[in-house]
């Protein structure tokens, strides 16, 4: 922020973001009761991402932060995405061995 911003202006800016966040909160709460089955989690997480985006972009001012600070923040997100995607890839694609597999080898050297 450059120059002297008046208190009324800065409180109004913060109130506008707060209003948007509150509307998103009401939407996600309503969405939790919709009969949309497996789409509930993706919907809730999409709204959460929108809320997080508002907080990061405006309240935390990531756009105005220096290049190194932005890279540091994005690295955090990248590692979490790697952690999640690699773990879930393993979990969802691992071959389940049939019951009794390898039992015929029991007792052999």
């Amino acid at each position: 922020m450059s120059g002297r911003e008046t208190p009324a202006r800065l409180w109004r800016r913060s109130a506008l973001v707060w209003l948007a966040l509150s509307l998103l909160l009401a939407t996600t709460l309503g969405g939790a009761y919709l009969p949309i089955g497996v789409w509930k989690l993706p919907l809730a997480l999409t709204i959460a991402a929108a809320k997080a985006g508002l907080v990061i972009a405006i309240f935390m001012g990531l756009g105005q932060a220096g290049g190194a600070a932005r890279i540091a923040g994005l690295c955090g997100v990248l590692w979490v995405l790697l952690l999640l995607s690699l773990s879930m890839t393993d979990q969802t694609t691992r071959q389940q061995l049939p019951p009794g597999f390898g039992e015929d080898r029991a007792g052999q050297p």
Partner: protein
Amino acid sequence: MTEARHDPFHDIARQRHAAELGLWVFLASELVFFGGLFVTYGLYRYAYPSAFEAAGAETAIWLGTINTAILLTSSATMAAAVWAGEAGHKRHVLIGLALTALLGLTFMGVKGVEYYKDISESLYPGAADFPVDMPGAQVFVGLYWAMTGVHAVHLSIGLVAVAITLWRVRAERFDWQNTALLHVLGLYWHLIDLIWIVLYPLLYLMGRSL
């Protein structure tokens, strides 16, 4: 008022950049720390989808929603305090910080009521009369306690930091206008809010129906 610039920085702009970068690195490490809990949630949810829905419906959705609204509001008051600091409006910095501290305390109060309710309803892992008789349900509740507990620890640290900063700004103990301290404090507080924004749908919105 003490000198704003500290060694080894040649000028205040560099010092601000260093403080800001340092805090973003810390926030990234915090994200990965909570990432471990998110992955645990993901893996167990994949393994026990219906137990997670059933146990998720047992959490106190209204208390969770009220607390989400409180925390979102506290982020707005914290942002106003930081912006007022950059513009040099001391009174508004103090108002913003005081409101943030008050909202943070209210969050902890509501959380305390919720924990009391959870315990009286046997909603904790290993409870003799645990309400959901499905494999995996106790894992969800274990994650609920771990995630909200670790979050509450972060919020308590934030509360102490906000209270100390409020006192120091009021007493002109440091150059709140030129140093990055208010900004850095704001970043930490917003991180607490961000984590809760993700925890809320995972812990409170699952398994609901009219």
